[in-house]
């Protein structure tokens, strides 16, 4: 049976609860703020959100169910999507199908986390069974060592250099400063990037995201409903996801995007060259390079040359992570998986203010999440198009 497209599904009302390095509040506070912002920005009452997805790492012992009572919501459709960097794409796919099927009318997709001074350290040992048994005992301090391996292997096999990764980081910092929503206040120079202290070689300080607290959210509804409500919106043109892809690769060189990208572009009736911008998932810059390859922007192994040939600033030849991405905006837990989605909606609805990609009509948002052992297991991507 041919897979049904996502015709008539719209995304609207991107909101961001500003990031702070640390917070004494709980995850529910950030999720509550996000829902509040959705109401303010849309003019809707929260009772009108009859669908809800929740993504968070710091919500325990609650799940999405507890959030409904906490925030006084009574949705008729609910999903808990604790898949970190892939949660944005996965929330869109699930909410889109619910809307198409009529199970929900307006779905609030919410992601947020708090960050206490010690919460990141405490989360590391309990992230997954494989992490507890086979990576945490090695002192790697979360995913740093895993991505050091992937970066080391990529550098030796593809010829990528630290300067290539530095270029990606510098351009994202440029975007972050233009968008204003960043914990970093200064531009990043190549000298600073290269001179940063080592964390887990070849990774240095600016290759790593800064854990912080914050939230991101948006609404999914039918395009007709968005028009009726007068909400600026974008159209979902295609979406893919894949889990535990290429499990036999001894070290991660390919991501699951590669298995499904043809279907993604076919649904959107577009190719990589048609994208006016991309929002790649940037837990570490090597993964941005891998996405350029596996999403078809260049061939496998040509990532370094591709990076050298482009500028990734909002006004560059291929705008990437136009709000700065997590590398420059910070990683607010599961909200990191929503960051590219809210930014893409802003770009395509003329809400990106001073860092608008000129004439943007089509954009790609990619997700990547859940380092349970030696790589992230979840990959996904969506293509969003302007509605007018």
């Amino acid at each position: 049976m041919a897979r049904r497209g996502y015709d008539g599904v719209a995304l609207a009302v991107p909101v961001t609860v500003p990031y702070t390095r640390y917070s004494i509040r709980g995850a529910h506070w950030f999720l509550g703020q996000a829902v509040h912002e959705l109401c303010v920005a849309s003019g809707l009452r929260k009772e009108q959100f009859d669908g809800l997805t929740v993504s968070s790492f710091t919500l325990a012992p609650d799940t999405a169910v507890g959030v409904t009572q906490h925030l006084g919501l009574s949705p008729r459709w609910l999903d808990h999507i604790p898949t970190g960097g892939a949660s944005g794409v996965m929330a869109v796919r699930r909410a889109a199908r619910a809307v198409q099927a009529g199970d929900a009318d307006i779905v609030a997709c919410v992601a947020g986390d708090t960050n206490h001074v010690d919460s990141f350290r405490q989360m590391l040992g309990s992230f997954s069974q494989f992490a507890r048994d086979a990576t945490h005992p090695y002192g790697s301090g979360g995913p740093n060592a895993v991505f050091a391996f992937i970066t080391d292997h990529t550098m030796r096999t593809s010829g990528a250099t630290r300067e290539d990764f530095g270029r990606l980081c510098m351009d994202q910092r440029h975007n972050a400063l233009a968008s204003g929503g960043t914990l970093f206040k200064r531009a990043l120079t190549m000298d600073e990037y290269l001179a940063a202290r080592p964390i887990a070689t070849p990774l240095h300080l600016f290759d790593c995201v800064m854990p912080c607290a914050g939230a991101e959210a948006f609404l999914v509804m039918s395009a007709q409903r968005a028009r009726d409500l007068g909400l600026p919106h974008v159209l979902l043109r295609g979406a893919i996801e894949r889990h535990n892809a290429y499990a036999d690769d001894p070290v991660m060189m390919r991501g699951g995007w590669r298995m499904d990208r043809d279907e993604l572009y076919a649904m959107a009736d577009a190719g990589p060259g048609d994208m006016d911008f991309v929002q790649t998932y940037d837990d570490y810059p090597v993964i941005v390079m891998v996405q350029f390859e596996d999403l078809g922007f260049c061939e496998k192994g040509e990532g370094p040359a591709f990076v050298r040939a482009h500028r990734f600033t909002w006004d560059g030849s291929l705008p990437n992570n136009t709000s700065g991405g997590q590398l420059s905006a910070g990683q607010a837990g599961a909200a990191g998986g929503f960051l590219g989605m809210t930014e893409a909606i802003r770009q395509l609805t003329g809400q990106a203010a001073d860092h608008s990609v000129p004439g943007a009509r089509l954009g790609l948002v990619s997700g990547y999440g859940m380092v349970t052992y030696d790589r992230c297991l979840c990959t996904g991507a969506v293509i969003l198009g302007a509605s007018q």
Partner: protein
Amino acid sequence: MPLLKPRRKNPVLRTRQINLPPSARSRVALGLTAAAAMGRFELQQCVDCKSVVYPPREACPRCASSRLRWREQDGAGALLAGTTLHHSNDLFFRERLPWRLGLVKLDAGPTLMVHLHGAVVAPQDRVPARVHIAARLDRAGQAVLIALPEKDSPNMADDPMLREMSSDPKQRKVLVTDGMTPVGQALVREFARAGAELIWVGHAQPWKQHGSGLETIAGLPQVTLLPLDLTDGRSVQALAGEIGAKVDIVVNNAEVHRGFGISARRGTDVAKLEMEVNYFGALRLAQAFGPALAGRSADGAANACAWVNLLSIYALANFPPHGTYSASKAAAHSLAQCQRAELRGAGIRVVNVFPGPIDDEWNQNLPPPKLAPAALAAAVVKALRDGIEDVYPGDVAHEWFERWRDDPKVLEREIAAGGA
């Protein structure tokens, strides 16, 4: 660089305290630890499709069978990628940075995250370095994997990372509780050969020294003889007061061993004496020396690290011809498990040694093979070097252990019927 004699400690400075590496594991992952405790590297293998899998799990990722069994691995693999940690959120590693890790493709199949021994060269270009993977107990007493160079290199055991996973006697100070037996003397000679800095040797009953062989070790430059009677709490306390704060490895080999079971010897005097030394003596020693060892378990390159209990394979199942002795060793074994749990938090390794009959005067009536004292001593030092926690030295011990593990009830019946 070989490990040199550590510099004399500055008594004004604070003694560094231990922080353990993360010790939580799922139950299924403890299979790795159980094998590593005996010096073996085992991974789960699927009975149905033969896949070797890692990390430990409940079902085969290739065929979804739940029939996974732990099987010994040869450890051959290729280092695909490496990193040097300069940052860790974990206190144990933070205090020991920089720390090398690697990603290894085992020839048998799975990809492993491992500690990287200092002699393993980093991956160059596209050619992965060949490595040998071993499973070792870390300071928390849990198994971790370490990549060693394919061929042994000089001074390999002196690598700081490997020393955290072993209890190598080199440059350490050792107490051997009884120097008056052939086993005690063999232990002292073996520790001297292994490069122990100092060896204190206990001896009880000074009137029996003549002819005991004690004089054969008294002249070794590392050796200091000290009176120690495990039946006397004050004697144990006095020695702990004198050397407790300096000992790095305690080897409790003091024992009383007499023949017979219940009916061949009247009364309880001999059994009481066996318990008095083999069980209560071990308890007195553990109470007197344990806290001092625990307090020095991160004290420099020659930190306090291990406690060796000389038990007996008869601790696992009673050997009726030596029935009361077996009972005292079973009690000592149980106590040693308690001691292991209590010292775990300090990162002190408790090594339990389960020999079969030793070739000494108290096993005169047992047929060979019997374990030579020198072989027992060599097995003890090797266990300390290799980070092994349970030692079954010699053919008899090994066979008993296999039979016990196969089915303790069957072993009991075999022995009751006169088998040994």
